[in-house]
């Protein structure tokens, strides 16, 4: 892993957090569509990243986002789940011929079909976990399901736009 690559990873971490906590926190479509774009950073980590570094990154990221959302632990717990299942999930989805080295699993590198099967379940699991913990102790089943589905679609669409605009083929942030 080269120096510029590490710089891109750290820079991406900070930029995603700043945009999430300062801008996207206030963006809620129709009262149900939350934009948790920062989980895309975790989903787009290079394919060969081991589970332990992913878990540590998820823990740090989740805690910082929780500070700003006043939901201490909820983002962290949900993010840890997708950090843990990310690597097994990538292994299951290995295309014929395996992965190239040092590859980010973006749309540009992997194609739209693969990216959708890869990211959509992870985004859904995050949203299910987040909204169920968040509304625990209340009898809000229907609104919670609305929020989960709307947010998952919103995050997925936003992630596609962000990748097409700001990522380059094979390399990038």
């Amino acid at each position: 892993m080269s120096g510029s690559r590490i710089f891109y990873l750290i820079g991406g971490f900070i930029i995603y957090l700043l945009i999430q906590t300062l801008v996207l926190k206030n963006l809620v479509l129709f009262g149900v569509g939350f934009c948790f774009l920062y989980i895309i950073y975790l989903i787009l980590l290079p394919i060969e990243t081991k589970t332990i570094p992913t878990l540590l990154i998820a823990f740090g990221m989740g805690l910082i986002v929780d500070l700003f959302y006043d939901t201490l632990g909820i983002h962290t717990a949900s993010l840890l789940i997708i950090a843990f299942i990310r690597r097994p999930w990538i292994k299951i989805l290995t295309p014929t011929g395996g992965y190239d080295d040092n590859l980010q699993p973006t749309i540009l590198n992997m194609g739209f079909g693969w990216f959708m099967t890869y990211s959509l379940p992870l985004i859904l699991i995050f949203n299910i976990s987040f909204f169920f913990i968040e509304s625990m102790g209340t009898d809000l089943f229907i609104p919670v399901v609305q929020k989960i589905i709307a947010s998952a679609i919103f995050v997925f669409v936003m992630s596609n736009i962000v990748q097409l605009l700001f990522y380059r083929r094979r390399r990038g942030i």
Partner: protein
Amino acid sequence: MQRILLFLYSLRAFLLFVFLEAIAIWLIVSFNSQQGSAFFNSSNQFSGKILGVKNNVSEYFTLAEVNRRLVDTNAELLAELEMYKKPADSTFIQLDSILTAKFEFKGAKVINNSIRLSQNHLTLNKGENQGIKPGMGVFNGQGVVGRVKGVSKNFSTVISLLHTDLLISSKIESTEVFGSIKWDGKDPQKAKMLYIPRHVKIEVGDKIVTSGYNAVFPEGINIGIVAEVNQGSDTNYLDVTVSLSTDFTKVSYVYLVENDIEEELDSLYLNSEINNER
């Protein structure tokens, strides 16, 4: 022994996952209660500073609206002041000051707000150094906003009225029947009024105000008007929906109120073993 260690080593990622997840759950359980510590939320110095800077930029876009509100509030206050002027009568009797609760008011600016979750919070730009204490009531010109949860040196976190655990003691202004306002987590403009017995006559459009019983808010601060009355599933109580008078999407400046005799009331309740409603 070596094989056990090797086995544990092969499970290291899973063990780390369980360990970190346990920390996260511990955080959820211990810091998301209403009286939780103020350290790990948006009122700590680090996130408070960043939010403060962000608010300095974004407040320019709402200045016109804020000005209009301030003028409105000023006008109302002036009208109210007129009422308290002493009548031109030589036999004016002052009510005993012991009978009136002693409230102190402070102003603050909202630098962070959320309305779409089921447990919403606000962050204010004043804290311990400016005399803010946990438990103070928060309202603005339109009505009740919430209650202070925790304070740091220069910032404080407020549980919004839009929080499914917050109860606010309230009453119907015309009939003096009292109940509790609680948000049901659905619409940020509607809340439920609990514990209104079935025999009470209540009309759509009745005004709901704070009751002054739980010593957090003074009596008579606006909460909203009755929007809907249903028989409900509970056999003892009516199902009353209140449309809130505070527009939580536009809360920008708030007032905080502290009751000087709250401690005395609290210890009185404690001694007589009554659970005061929070």
